[in-house]
């Protein structure tokens, strides 16, 4: 897909003016936050399970090479094939090779963010293979020619009436006067269309929420059942997974599942948690003839052992974006690539480079809500700050910003000079503000005043006021 992370600011401005989008984004705040809180409150052990989940993933990352070997051996023992993919291009070619060998024309797909990351759909289409998304949200955005705007609710930016219009535009074989006014009717229509697709597919592609090293098992968690039909009815099941998805044992899987469902959708447990191990057995009446796993690195091994290693604990629940005021305002597409919100602000620069995605870690007030709800306790604000530092060190910010930061740093590291300067500027600004006590525009501060007024400072600096209330005692 076309990466537009470098135009985040312009994307955001457009998003703020998009009436449909703003209406749709209201559902994120209403839908997810309360449900998650209720589910968390109903489980007294939730925090202990979070700590346990963190410990499991930390342990895995410390021994990831050994767990990957164990996992791959178990997959092969169960009759499956493991493909190691260095990067997006490599992963795409592996999938195409499988498709070519099987003479595949149609591919059904369960929800997989790795597929988005490697741009698989466009690549398959270029090579004459038709991908069909089966998750309702993914299906909707495929019809619209869009990309997901949320990692678990891909069509959260779309309103019901837009879905109706898309279905009428694409499903031209159905009666034009049919009733599609209720979401349930739209769901029924998508179900009917996709039912025809599953069995005809030559290959079913899914992602994986987890890979279990002990048994060579891939795990998907869904509510619709589309991922299950995709992998069950396709003649060949291809799992796309990144290398950090490993958990050691089935018990570890069970522990993390508890925090995943609650953090993602506020459910006690998702409707379908499906463990797949190898292809159809000799006495199985159904299931795929072949089972492949594409293990994708694509920059992740370079995060190991760095300050960004903690990001590899992420289980893609989406809680951070559900609770992010910036995401609520601009939506997922503004982030310009596959992973939006706070997790995207950390992961995207790691995977595509901070030169292309430097805006993302800057799009945060560091309010800390993301970290407070993250089931894997990833210190997202701290990691965003690391990216800001790296960006500054590599001279990637615009000249004016670097200059401004330089000036500020000069004063900030010289407290007496800082206080002297502010003791002049603050009263001056206070006087200039007039009776409104606000600035509608101010030279050098257009970035702020373009969108909102700048409140005028009170007549004296904090330090001056502090000194007064403390009997003139100087604290520094």
């Amino acid at each position, binding site marked *: 897909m076309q990466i537009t992370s470098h135009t985040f600011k312009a994307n955001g401005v457009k998003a703020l003016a998009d009436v449909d989008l703003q209406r749709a984004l209201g559902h994120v705040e209403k839908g*997810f936050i309360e449900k998650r809180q209720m589910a968390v409150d109903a489980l007294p052990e939730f925090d202990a399970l979070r700590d346990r989940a963190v410990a499991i993933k930390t342990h895995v990352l410390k021994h990831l090479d050994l767990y990957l070997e164990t996992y791959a051996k178990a997959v092969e023992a169960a009759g499956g094939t493991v493909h190691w993919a260095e990067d997006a291009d490599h992963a795409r070619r592996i999938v195409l090779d499988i498709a070519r060998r099987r003479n595949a024309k149609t591919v059904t797909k369960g929800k997989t963010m790795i597929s988005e990351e490697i741009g698989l759909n466009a690549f398959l289409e270029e090579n004459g293979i038709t991908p069909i998304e089966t998750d309702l949200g993914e299906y909707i955005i495929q019809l619209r020619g869009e990309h997901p705007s949320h990692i678990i609710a891909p069509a959260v930016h779309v309103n019901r009436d837009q879905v109706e219009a898309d279905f009428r535009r694409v499903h031209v074989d159905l009666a034009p006067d049919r009733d599609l006014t209720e979401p349930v009717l739209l769901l029924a229509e998508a179900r009917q269309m996709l039912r025809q697709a599953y069995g005809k597919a030559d290959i079913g592609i899914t992602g994986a929420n987890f890979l279990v090293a002990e048994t060579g098992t891939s795990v998907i968690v869904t509510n619709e059942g589309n991922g299950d039909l995709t992998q069950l009815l396709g003649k060949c099941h291809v799992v796309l997974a990144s290398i950090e998805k490993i958990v050691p044992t089935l018990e570890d899987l069970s522990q993390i599942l508890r925090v995943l469902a609650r953090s993602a959708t506020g459910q006690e*447990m998702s409707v*379908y948690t499906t463990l797949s191990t190898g292809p159809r057995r000799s006495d199985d009446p159904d299931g795929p003839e072949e089972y492949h796993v594409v293990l994708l690195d694509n920059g992740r091994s370079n995060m190991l052992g760095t300050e960004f290693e903690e990001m590899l604990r992420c289980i893609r629940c989406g809680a951070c974006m559900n609770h992010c005021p910036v995401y609520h305002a601009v939506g997922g597409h503004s982030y310009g690539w596959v992973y939006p919100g706070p997790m995207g602000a950390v992961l995207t620069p790691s995977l595509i480079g901070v030169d292309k995605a430097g805006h993302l870690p800057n799009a945060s007030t560091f309010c800390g809500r993301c970290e407070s709800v993250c089931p894997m306790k990833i210190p997202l604000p701290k990691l965003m700050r690391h990216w800001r530092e790296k960006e500054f060190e590599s001279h990637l910010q615009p000249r004016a910003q670097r200059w401004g930061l330089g000036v500020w740093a000069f004063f900030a590291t010289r407290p007496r000079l800082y206080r002297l300067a502010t003791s002049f500027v603050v009263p001056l600004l206070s006087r200039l503000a007039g009776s409104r006590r606000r600035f509608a525009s101010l030279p050098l501060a257009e970035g702020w005043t373009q969108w909102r007024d700048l409140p005028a400072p009170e007549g004296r600096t904090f330090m001056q006021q502090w000194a007064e209330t403390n009997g003139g005692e100087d604290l520094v």
Partner: protein
Amino acid sequence: MTASSRDAILSRVRHAIGGRVHDEARREVVAMRLAEAPAGVIPARGQRPRAELLELFCTMAGRASASVTRIAGYDGVPEAVAEWLRAANLPATLRLGADPRLAALDFSATALQLSHGASSGDDLNGLSHADGGIAETGTLMLLSGADNPTSLNFLPENHIVLVHADDVVGDMEALWPRLRARFGKGLMPRSVNFVTGPSRSADIEQTLLLGAHGPRALHVILIGD
């Protein structure tokens, strides 16, 4: 290509975490962790006497929008199935696998028309036997194979699942030792399906709707007490 990519990825990972190829101590740590498979934090909710556990299982399944009937023994299954289909105003047809526990049922007193094998996609009602139930969340565990074809879990419009009280445990962790005892450590059936309520989606305006791609209704029959 793939073999060298494997080595390249593993060597980058190994280098990043500071491990050596023959790091015996680390290998031992990993082998121990896999062998011991510690259970971790088990919520108190599912840890209760059997009668209460079965009650909890039914309550939680109900909260996930499944319906539940409790009967004393397998003798009551045909009538319970027929009764639920009647009450839901559904045709008296049933698709099921080769599970001996299902084969032993006598449906002759009902008007049900049975057919056997994997689902072709046009079955209205499917019947499966679960091999486990989780009280904590009202979840069923179904295993693939000729006994209970996986397609029956997903393709029929309505799914009826039997589970025996002896197979209902407090938490998911308690099922794994049972599975290992049956299939062997590290070995699994092709598919283990955990099912909690009927299929659903909230992809349109975050409105929760039942019956997405899987069954629109899930009916659980709990056998024994």
